[in-house]
């Protein structure tokens, strides 16, 4: 039954327009889309379910969203729930993931997703304290001056660091601040810092893109991507520090940081569409 209803929904979207409206038979019970499981979540407020939801959350979500769900690398979920995001939307986001971010899709049973939602409701309903307060326009200028040589937005900027075209959807405000102030705290595997020492002593620093026993592939600080045989190298130095410098208060004052984060928070979807001018 569920499959059939989804097919009907899909068909409606494809056909669309007046043709569909004209051809539509009287609405029958069979055509009513099956409500999402989140619309009737039996686990809300159930103590046992919430406890199980906590376990599932900690095993599957806490690594990115934080043990307290207040956001780490991923967004603040307490704020998300408190801010009025519908359970249906949360359910579908968990189910389908967020393309272009670290958030994966899942095939876990509906019940597990519903228990996670029940748990998130139980830990707080505080509205987001992360309202954008900075000056977005100034933030964009700060970005151009301080960040764009290494980070790309909508097809423009450097490539040594991650593309930030949708960072506003992927990171909470506090995560962005932490990563700007202390970038070495978490480094994604394809941005780990490495220095290659050639046989003649020449040193090449860059971000490690791949590695096996015999070879290593990097993007160096001049954005050259290149592979090297380890047998041709004197040494491979793995560094804990990020290639990105720490932007402490002496380098980026609180106001500029606030403005920069305000700007980054607006970056929610890459926009690289080419729009043709009318002839």
């Amino acid at each position, binding site marked *: 039954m569920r499959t059939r209803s989804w097919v009907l929904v899909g068909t409606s979207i494809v056909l669309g327009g007046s043709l569909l409206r004209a051809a539509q038979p009287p609405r029958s019970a069979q055509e009513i889309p099956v409500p999402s499981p989140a619309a009737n979540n039996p686990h809300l407020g159930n103590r046992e379910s919430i406890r199980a939801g906590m376990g*599932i959350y900690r095993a599957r979500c806490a690594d990115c969203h934080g043990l307290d769900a207040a956001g780490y690398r991923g967004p603040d979920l307490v704020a998300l729930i408190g801010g009025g995001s519908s359970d249906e939307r949360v359910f579908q986001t968990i189910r389908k993931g967020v393309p272009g971010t670290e958030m994966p899709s899942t095939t876990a049973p509906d019940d597990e997703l519903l228990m996670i939602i029940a748990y998130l409701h139980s830990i707080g309903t505080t509205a987001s304290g992360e309202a954008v307060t900075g000056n977005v326009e100034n933030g964009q200028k700060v970005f151009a001056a301080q960040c764009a040589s290494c980070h790309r937005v909508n097809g423009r900027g450097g490539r040594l660091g991650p593309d930030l075209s949708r960072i506003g959807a992927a990171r909470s405000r506090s995560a962005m601040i932490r990563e700007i102030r202390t970038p070495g705290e978490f480094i994604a595997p394809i941005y780990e810092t490495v220095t290659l020492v050639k046989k003649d002593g020449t040193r090449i620093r860059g971000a490690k893109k791949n590695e*096996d026993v015999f070879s290593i592939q990097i993007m160096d600080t001049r954005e050259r991507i290149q592979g090297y045989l380890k047998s041709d190298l004197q040494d491979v130095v793995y560094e804990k520090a990020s290639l990105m410098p720490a932007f402490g208060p002496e380098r980026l004052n609180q106001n500029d940081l606030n403005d920069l984060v305000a700007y980054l928070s607006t970056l929610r979807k890459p926009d690289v569409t080419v729009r043709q001018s009318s002839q």
Partner: protein
Amino acid sequence: MRAFLLIVLCSATLAAQQAASPTVTPQDLIDGLKDPARWLTYSGDYGGQRHSPLTQITPENVHQLAAQWTFQTNTLGSFQTTPLVIDGVLYVTGYNNNAWAIDARTGRQIWRYRRELPDDLHNCCGPVNRGFGVLGDRLYMTTIDAHLLALDMKTGGVVFDVEMADYKVGYSATVAPLVLKDRVIVGIAGAEYGIRGFIDAYDAQSGKRAWRFYTVAGPDDPVGGSSWPKGDAYMRGGGSIWVTGTYDPQQNLIFFGTGNPGPDYYSTAREGDNLYTASLVAIDATTGQRRWHYQFTPHDVHDWDSTQVPVLGDLTIDGRPRKVVMFANRNGFFYTIDRDTGKVIVAKPFVETTWAKEIGANGRPVLLPGNLPDEEGSKTCPDLGGGTNFMSPSYDPALKLFFVTARETCAVYYAFDQKFKPGEQYEAGGTIRPKDQKNFGALRAIDPTTGRIKWEFRYTSVSSSGVLSTASGVVFAGDGDGNVMAFDSRTGKNLWHYQLGSALRSTAGTTYMLDGRQYLLVPSGSMLTAFALPRTQS
């Protein structure tokens, strides 16, 4: 006169066909790798040693190995199979129950079989398959929808199709059948869906079931029944079988490692030892009766299936000749076990293990505190992937060295109560990788008389590659980054590597003689690659 000529001609043709028909006898299977042109069972021989007597490729010339041909499946999904080799033809199973017969000289397809699979499959870990079994002119294959098939070796046509269990509630099968005498021995998987595991024997001709051994003891089992809570927990107790066991013809015993209990992580759902999960079971091949068992991980809560290959060998330990089973377990310990009694002779960790101090004199692990998964999470080494896993080890009986792909890993394990619903995943927990945890893999050579590691070669990442060794002193294995490599068996020195573009999983391939040349055949990704020395060398 004309009729007589026809009869003579027909008889001659029939005789020629019979002479040309490759048929495999029970004795051929016992003989294992004695015929250098054949590789007839999952591990090459009944003992699971995966050690070839071939000597053309040596430590001195292995660096000259070169690719001869490549076969692409043109389907999605990775191989986890061990190809069989029978008189110039390769028989290979792949993802989604595709299968092929391939010309071993050229890599050209001879026939292809593809099973039509239902849409509503439940399987935790991909529709993989680990290979064919063979007897006479039939090939035997399990399917992801929990059937056993017999295929005609010449055409790939289906001879019989037996339902082992109901796929709709989570049963599945990936194991390469173990064929012995007139029986096909297979097992069932699906412990992540709350199934009750078993090992089955089927008549190779008729497909009729001869016996079933449940890897999860029922209440009427005088030995294992009390190791499960009262009620029906045993009915969803897991104990999958997904790696081929071994066979000792002299003892008429088959040996299988069994999977984890279900649900995977939540201890309270199934208090007790949970026999015969996470165990080694020795079963009479004729009757299906258990002769003995040894449980590696009583009441496992870390998803440590003991579905590794039980390797049979003869050792002298403390001056005494012993028939043994050697077993590198997912729980991080290496065991040498007496094959007659099931008693542990040697047990030593071969990777970092934080859950047990040691294996006590009574054979039970001496547990360390703080390793029970709960809602808060507890860190344990190794991770759920284990110290090793489904990838085959190998054993060199001349050097008395056991080669295994080891994983150095840790995880934070969580557990929570989960209500069981047939057909839905039933794990009741999960794991995450601790921050700053740097996992890596290694090929390790273990002395099975002491459990000590003689040498290792470290990889930059974890690997799921099996191992293959040869009498010339070469070990073949792969890292997690797509390299197939050759090592000196005595020292672990790397002698050769070739980047395949996709990592080896489950197997390091097979080796065989054809037209006077020794081939190494390696499945990786959706590709088979055959290597050999230059013609002048071979």
